[in-house]
């Protein structure tokens, strides 16, 4: 999660596929990612230092609606 309220979605075995989206498009982007990768079962949310906890939790909630296991990372 970036300071400018955008989100960079990283997928692939080593996170090599990177897509920048608006935070409002997260649900649709995850849905499409799930269609392409049905085996997708977990995600890690990492945020820039200044991103508010409210925004982090909001994104986690959206992600939890699409992916079974969502964790916080970056520490």
């Amino acid at each position, binding site marked *: 999660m970036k300071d400018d309220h955008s989100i960079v979605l990283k997928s692939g075995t080593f996170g090599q596929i990177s897509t920048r989206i608006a935070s409002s498009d997260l649900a649709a982007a995850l849905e499409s990612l799930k269609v392409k990768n049905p085996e997708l079962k977990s995600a890690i949310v990492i945020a820039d230092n200044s991103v*508010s906890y409210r925004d982090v939790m909001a994104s986690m909630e959206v992600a939890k609606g699409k992916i079974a296991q969502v964790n916080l990372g970056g*520490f």
Partner: protein
Amino acid sequence: MKIKKSFLPQAKKNEQMALQITSMADIFVIILVFLLKSYSVEGLPYQPSVALNPPAAKGRVEKSDALKVEIAKSAVNLGGKNVATIDGFKFGKNDIDSDGASATLRRALAVSHRTAATGPKGAKLIVVADEGAPYETIKAVLAPAAREGYLEIQLAVSHAE
């Protein structure tokens, strides 16, 4: 002529039926105790020891009790006691190590680890943070917790209907 006995009108027997309710009463008492216990947990309010406004989230309500770390704008409390004073969600620069973890909080978490409730993965910790806290502050709390062996960390939110 013999008529089969069952075809004749039978005289009503003046019998009083006794209902045995002892077992049923026992079952109701057990159910009542169970319901009372459940409701006492449902209604268990949580009042943070410091003024803060957790983010709202929908989804399932999971009741859990464990050591709580509360992150407010000017203080970090652990188990209801103030362990670090922060200024506008910022830890002092001298308190943050190279990995962004709070040294003061790490010491407090190490002391509390001995008495903390444990789950299947390890010691349990519930993080109750103000919604305005920057992720930097959340990391400064989560990093020392993970290092001190709190491997079952839950993030508390206020439940949005």
